[in-house]
């Protein structure tokens, strides 16, 4: 598992690896919002949690189709399926690599970009916290979607259509927790729900991902 994780991170940092692609996309989306909505600070501060979360979702989506497609094209996935490590482990390693290259940069970039959306320090803290808890779920669910579309040519669009509805609960509870926290209300319930979704997804989806891969590799 460590071997795959290490190799994927190494590949991500090499030329054409796509490291930081999601981060730059996140940056552009967030910068575009004040242009579209106008510079009214009250309005921006109110919609900021939702905007940051939607942008994070889209940024995570952007790099999903690379997770298995590249390994499938050059035959690596077939060989990994016959290698002495379970496919579940392969799936989990892929999730880890996607999270480190996409989720973690978002966590650190979000409060900085939040300044553009006029959020205060308290809200920025909650944005970071919810992203730390929520982005692993985005990676796990996305990896499952990537496994579903692994043999499909130009499967990127299909992948988005499959995965975005599955991202909805994470988005709802993530943005809600930030709103409550920033507004001085008790954010415990949405935070717990968010953590529950992430924990459940990590526990169950690697098995589903491996099963789907086996079928797709036949």
């Amino acid at each position: 598992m460590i071997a795959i994780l290490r190799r994927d991170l190494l590949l991500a940092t090499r030329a054409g690896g796509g490291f930081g692609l999601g981060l730059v996309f996140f940056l552009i989306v967030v910068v575009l919002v004040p242009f579209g909505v106008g510079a009214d600070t009250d309005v921006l501060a109110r919609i900021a949690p939702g905007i940051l979360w939607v942008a994070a979702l889209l940024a995570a989506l952007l790099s999903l189709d690379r997770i298995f497609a590249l390994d499938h094209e050059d035959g690596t996935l077939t060989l990994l399926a016959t290698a002495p490590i379970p496919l579940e482990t392969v799936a989990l390693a892929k999730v880890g690599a996607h999270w480190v290259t996409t989720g973690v940069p978002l966590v650190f970039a979000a409060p900085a970009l939040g300044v553009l959306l006029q959020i205060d320090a308290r809200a920025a803290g909650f944005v970071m916290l919810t992203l730390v808890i929520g982005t692993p779920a985005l990676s796990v669910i996305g990896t499952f979607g990537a496994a579903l579309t692994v043999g499909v040519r130009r499967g990127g669009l299909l992948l988005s259509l499959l995965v975005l509805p599955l991202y909805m609960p994470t988005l709802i509870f993530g943005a809600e927790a930030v709103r409550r926290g920033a507004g001085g209300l008790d954010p415990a319930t949405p935070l717990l729900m968010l953590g529950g979704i992430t924990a459940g997804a990590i526990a169950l989806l690697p098995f589903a991902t491996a099963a789907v891969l086996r079928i797709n590799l036949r």
Partner: protein
Amino acid sequence: MRNLAVARGGATVLAGLTFDVAAGQALILRGPNGVGKTTLLRTLAGLQPQVAGDFEIDPNQGAYASHADAVKSALTVQENLAFWADIYGTCIPDTIWDQFDLGALRDRTAGTLSAGQKRRLGLARLGVIGRKVLLLDEPTVSLDGFSVKLFTRFIQDQHLAAGGIAVIATHIDLDIVADTLDLAPFVPSKQMLDSSDAAFL
């Protein structure tokens, strides 16, 4: 392997295969394009279920090599081999560089290699992972005469000599002492397929 039948895309392509390969022996699979060589090897590798019959391969000793080289072009030759060594929990033997003539290419990015050099790198993986039963699908594609000789020497003098087994699908004459199995006679006749369909219905 007894009475094995394999299918591709829902259609049975080979049926009634029975053979046995002892340790230290190789088996060459022959037959025209589309006869089912790849399907048979994929079934033996456990990538797809067989239609009928059964086969026995030590699950901890099988290794499959497909048409694709599974080479990551952004990694160097050394890093590519090190990855597979990590996965299989082995280390890269020093002899591998001479065996597959990769010594000079060791620190080159795999993306800059020629098709034949990539193929040699893909085959060198077999020397790294240390498996006893090799299932090779047209291993000599895009190799030149010299590289084919390197490859046959590896299979004959090292792998088979150490008691390994190799099942190789190929179209060219390899300089390996091996039994040959022509798959063409095992293609089920139209009539047989019809009757099995009728039985199924």
